[in-house]
């Protein structure tokens, strides 16, 4: 019977333990990868001896700006010579990444590999550290603010920061100083704007205010991307609820209270809405979601294929809330030039417009609207707001998340 015992301790042997097993075995993965990294360092050291005559190539590993290594044309040439770019946790349905990657590859002939499309911000940090020196090491990160600051400061006992390589794109000065690390380790890339999506075929009242969600018509309807204790979009919904129900970005409790009320009214649907693409919305188990506008837009496009579903998006009255993600380059990027070109591309009007077309608020959006570089398609996808969105700094986000971790279960449990 011992075999049974071992198996059961490891828990139900099916897809169920995939994620858990990952966690349990993370320790082993680190240990094993340390070994592999050792070998990797040896082989890459010998490789760099043979290729080091291309002195400009090594220049890019530490370049803070394109000008330090010969300017944009030198960067494009070096990136093309590398030929590949490794990204992680950039699903093609997220923030228009599918089109962005296609366009980048078409433009520069650089192939993009996403090593872990459905990862989390925590996974991204893990990958930088444990894939160091291996081909799977990501070049660039699109990551939650809490994790971006952690990657710079380090996590005592786990890794020493910074594990990012600083780089300032040509548009660096257009990003407000609150939206970037002063030493260039990361910068805001785009923000998710919190909007409400709903199935207009079932729900006839457009939820134009937060209190509309408490109406009986929304019984068992309102879902979140995932629990705000584990998801950036879920947390964004709580923040948006907070600032529109008597709280602020530094007083998140009213947001938690809003969901407590929503749950007590029987209107909160605890199924993970963002867990399987548009699945929960397509089978009508989730009839409304509070989520990033770019997710709503992506679902809207997908759901257009599902008969009988009319997914509408509204910006609820009150203060709009937007939360930024950050872009950074791994300190151990195997393709340092391609990584830097990717950033230049993403922050150029082309990249920023594509992000906006996906329904995000790109970091340089205000400037782009002012100087006329914002495209018509982008302007169509970004919702018109009555006022500038409220945003939270990385430390405000971290503090809010700490509170949600403590209070969420007792509010909705």
């Amino acid at each position: 019977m011992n075999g049974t015992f071992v198996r059961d301790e490891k828990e139900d042997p099916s897809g169920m333990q995939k994620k858990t097993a990952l966690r349990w075995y993370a320790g082993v993965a680190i240990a094993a990868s340390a070994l592999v990294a050792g070998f990797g360092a040896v082989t890459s050291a010998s490789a760099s001896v043979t290729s080091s005559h291309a002195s400009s190539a090594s220049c890019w590993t530490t370049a803070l700006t394109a000008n330090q290594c010969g300017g944009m044309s030198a960067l494009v040439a070096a990136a093309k010579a590398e030929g590949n770019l490794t990204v992680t946790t950039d699903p093609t349905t997220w923030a228009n990444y599918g089109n962005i990657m296609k366009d980048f590859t078409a433009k520069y002939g650089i192939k993009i590999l996403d090593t872990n499309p459905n990862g989390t911000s925590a996974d991204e940090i893990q990958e930088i550290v444990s894939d160091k020196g291996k081909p799977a090491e990501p070049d660039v990160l699109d990551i939650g603010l809490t994790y971006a600051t952690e990657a710079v400061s380090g996590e005592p006992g786990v890794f020493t920061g910074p594990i990012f390589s600083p780089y300032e794109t040509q548009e660096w000065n257009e990003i407000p100083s609150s939206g970037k690390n002063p030493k260039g380790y990361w910068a805001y890339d785009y923000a998710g704007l919190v909007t409400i999506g709903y199935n207009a075929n079932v729900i006839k009242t457009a939820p134009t205010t937060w209190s509309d969600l408490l109406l009986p018509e929304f019984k068992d309807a309102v879902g979140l991307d995932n629990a705000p204790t584990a998801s950036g979009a879920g947390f964004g919904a709580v923040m948006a609820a907070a600032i529109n129900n008597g709280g602020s970005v530094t007083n998140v409790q009213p947001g938690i209270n809003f969901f407590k009320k929503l749950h007590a009214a029987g209107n909160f649907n605890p199924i993970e809405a963002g867990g399987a693409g548009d699945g929960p919305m397509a089978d009508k188990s989730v009839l409304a979601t509070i989520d990033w506008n770019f997710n709503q837009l992506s679902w809207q496009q997908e759901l257009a294929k599902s008969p009988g579903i009319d997914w509408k998006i509204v910006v609820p009255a009150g203060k709009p809330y937007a939360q930024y993600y950050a872009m950074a380059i791994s300190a151990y990027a195997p393709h340092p030039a391609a990584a830097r070109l990717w950033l230049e591309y993403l922050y150029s009007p082309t990249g920023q417009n594509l992000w906006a077309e996906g329904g995000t608020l790109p970091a340089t959006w205000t400037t782009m609207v002012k100087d006329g570089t914002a495209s018509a398609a982008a302007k169509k996808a970004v919702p018109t707001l009555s006022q500038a969105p409220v945003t939270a700094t990385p430390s405000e986000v971290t503090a809010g998340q700490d509170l949600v971790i403590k209070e969420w279960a007792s509010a909705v449990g």
Partner: protein
Amino acid sequence: MIGVAPFFVYVGLFLVVPAGSVMVEAFHDNNGRLSLANIRTLLDSSQPYLHDYATSLELAAVSAVVAGVIGLLGAVALVSFPNRTMRHLVSTACGVLANTGGVPLAFAFIASVGNSGVITDLLARLGFNPYDHGFNISSFSGLVIVYLYFLLPLTILLMLPPVEALRREWREAASTLGADTRTYWRKVGLPVIAPPFVATMMVLFMDAFAAYATADVLTTGVVPLVPLTIGQFLDGNAVANQVHLGDALGFGMVVVVIIAGALYVFVQRRTSRWLR
């Protein structure tokens, strides 16, 4: 010896090392120093973690008892079924179903008895919408029902051998001595079955206690369970720098599983003494 070496390497790498590292890391703080701070946080009643454990233990216990009782009746019924083909068919099916779980299982239940599931729709059309009568798949009782899907077949699998081992002669001897069916079960059947039954419940308990992905998809924190909390610390999008607290929570789970496992081994010994 060389033949089993790969097994020991496997168990060492994928069970002993990770479990050991969880136990070591649970007693370190964020600066890598030995510390009881994580354990203290765990036991602090102003924190949510004790409540997580209570919910997890309750869910595992309720699921195990319900699955155990129904599964035992199922096993007894199956053994008394005269057709052996049927028995093979059911036990093979149980072998497959006991290993069903995770996200696919969650979606199967959402599609059938979710708020707009096929069965829910059917019942609603017949005038009884379970969602108007307090039922919800994303709740404690909902999770018990979902867990039964893999725990029941597991019970039948584990209880078939001991139920089959009840010898016909014992029953005949009992009735010769004047015992009716009830007396037979009370004095002979149940006492013999009891140790393997308790052992099976321990296995069910551990299985339900550690299940993760199904609950993750269905509940978004509405039913606070320890594995989900560990998940948010180790693999989330919201919390950084709390890995050691996650390890401490994992350590607590290891302790619970060790206690349940020890109980399992203890009763299993008694079983083998009876049913040789």
